[in-house]
């Protein structure tokens, strides 16, 4: 069977458009490739996928008939995380869903279903970690600012949680790795990009912090140290719960 390489733009819509091509051309074996195609070997079957809203919407509509609302959210979350090389598994999942007469979401014997559930678990875990490990610092204008460096791109998945929890304070969570943030202005949230180099290092902008900020940071560190029970020390467990790469943004660990 011939192998066809689908070149797409790496977006979720692009991925859905690729699914469209699979069915339009009755493709069997496929490979996904993001961005430009440089290898011009003659025998390759290559299709450049145009990311097309209507096609993507059609695929999504078809998918909704076969997979639950939650299932689609999970696919989206798995894609959003941007883990390299995983879109092919999402494509496999969608094909399996389309080709099967019954709902396949719980078929954990299938490799695509299993992989998607693993991906979702990885993304969820990172989301939960961020919900736990965000540490806001109050700035002079009253905004609460936090810098984060999550393993996956989970900022969009965090909005709901932080918006409903901190409804009465302005806040910003900034992904230093991916260079964008979410800002909440007491009404709505918006994505922001800015040259924020200074705020990456929590201690380099002391002047921008509210008066009481260092007091509460200090109190929190004190609290963290006093609740420790030395006779029960268990460093392995501690590091398993808070891997070291998160420490630099945790007030109590700085």
């Amino acid at each position, binding site marked *: 069977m011939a192998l066809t390489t689908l070149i797409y733009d790496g977006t979720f819509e692009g991925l859905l458009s690729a699914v469209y091509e699979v069915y339009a051309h009755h493709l069997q074996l496929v490979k996904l490739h993001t961005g430009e195609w440089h290898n011009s070997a003659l025998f390759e079957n290559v299709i450049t996928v145009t990311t097309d809203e209507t096609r993507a919407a059609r695929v999504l509509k078809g998918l909704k008939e076969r997979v639950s609302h939650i299932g689609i959210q999970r696919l989206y979350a798995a894609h959003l995380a941007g883990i390299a090389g995983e879109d092919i598994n999402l494509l496999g999942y969608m094909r399996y869903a389309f080709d099967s007469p019954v709902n396949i979401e719980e078929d954990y014997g299938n490799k695509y279903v299993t992989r998607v559930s693993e991906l979702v678990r990885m993304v969820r875990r990172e989301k939960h970690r961020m919900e736990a490990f*965000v*540490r806001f610092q109050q700035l002079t204008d009253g905004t609460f600012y936090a810098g984060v460096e999550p393993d996956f791109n989970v900022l969009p998945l965090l909005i709901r949680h932080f918006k409903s929890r901190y409804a009465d304070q302005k806040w910003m969570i900034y992904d230093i790795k991916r260079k964008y943030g979410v800002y909440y202005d007491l009404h709505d949230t918006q994505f922001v990009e800015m040259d924020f180099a200074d705020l990456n290092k929590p201690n380099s902008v002391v002047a921008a912090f509210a008066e009481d900020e260092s*007091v509460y940071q200090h109190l929190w560190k004190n*609290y963290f140290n006093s609740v420790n029970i030395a006779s029960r020390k268990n460093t392995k467990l501690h590091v398993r719960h808070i891997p070291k790469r998160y420490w630099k943004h945790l007030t*109590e660990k700085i």
Partner: protein
Amino acid sequence: MNEERITEKLNILADAAKYDVSCASSGSKRKNENKGLGNASNGICHSYTEDGRCVSLLKILLTNHCIFDCAYCVSRKNNDIKRAAFTVQEVVDLTINFYRRNYIEGLFLSSGIFKNADYTMERLVRVAKKLRTEHNFNGYIHLKSIPGASDELMNEAGLYADRLSVNLEMPTEAGLKLLAPDKNQQDMIKPMGYLRNAIIKHSEEKKLFKKAPQFAPAGQSTQMIIGATPENDNVVLHSANYFYKNFKLKRVYYSGYVPVLADNRLPALNTAVPMVRENRLYQADWLMRFYGFKVNEIVNNAQPHLDLDIDPKLGWAIRNMQAFPVDINKSDLQLILRVPGIGLLSAQKIVSARKFGKLNWDHLKKMGVSLNRAKYFVTCNSNEFERRDLTGNNIKQFILATSQSKYLKNTQTQLNLF
């Protein structure tokens, strides 16, 4: 704010509160509907102590002054330690400011008893009331009720707190008499009974009228110290079971006694904290609450101690080899849940996935089953299975030999094993 003074108070009053092990901040569904601050939902661990315990709440005492003299407690009257007391406003400010920075899920407030039970309880309630009514705070509040506090105060506490707890302290009345001569088990059981009734009544009203007030929506819990008195696991777990059944408790916490005082009624100061035993008790507790085990199946007069080498589920399995092997592709969920190495989540996955086709070892492994243990107890769609006629003891030895470190050195307290 006098930073130095507050810091000192916080150090003293957090240090004194840390031996209360309950940290859960889940089980409440308080929403942020008033565009105020916070909500309470699934309970997040915002940090972990160096001993690996979850830090979810600001857990402090209002004061460590106390008129009682419980032998196991650092705050007891005759202990020569520094004393401190927060004002109501100080606790409120700390809670709000920690919460806004995403350090915590809420407050766990407890206290030594000053003057008398009601006087103390009234202060605790005032903190909760202020947070809710003046600061629009919807985060989690756990109040520890003072034994002997009046029904009126318990009622008010329930209206503002998410969870209330009355600590039993010792698994039996005799243990309590010995170590806490000022306390009386009735003073603990009475408010627990009051809370049980009030919680049931309010949740029924809530079903009828959406607007009915919430009352301790995360229920009530209790704590027992283990290892300070000689009660065995059979007594401890039967006592826990009794309180789960009769008082509709959400959780029973087991706190391995940390030697804090030299007293001939207590284990010596150099005694190790019984961490493995504590861990086994939590595992047993999980089996009772989520895995459909009866307390008698886990411990009984013939089997009064939990095996420290292996978890209680494996313990049950090797004592009951006649129940195995379980056919993964046919057996009821209830039976699959009893297989060592299969957790709640994997059991559910198995039952869902087998509708699509027969499952083999590879499938089980992908679903997170620990084959190292499960393989002795199940058959699946494969010709390979344990054919030797092994006794329970053989299996225990095999499993211990392949996972020595994990079993013997495991010291987790809040766990998700099996």
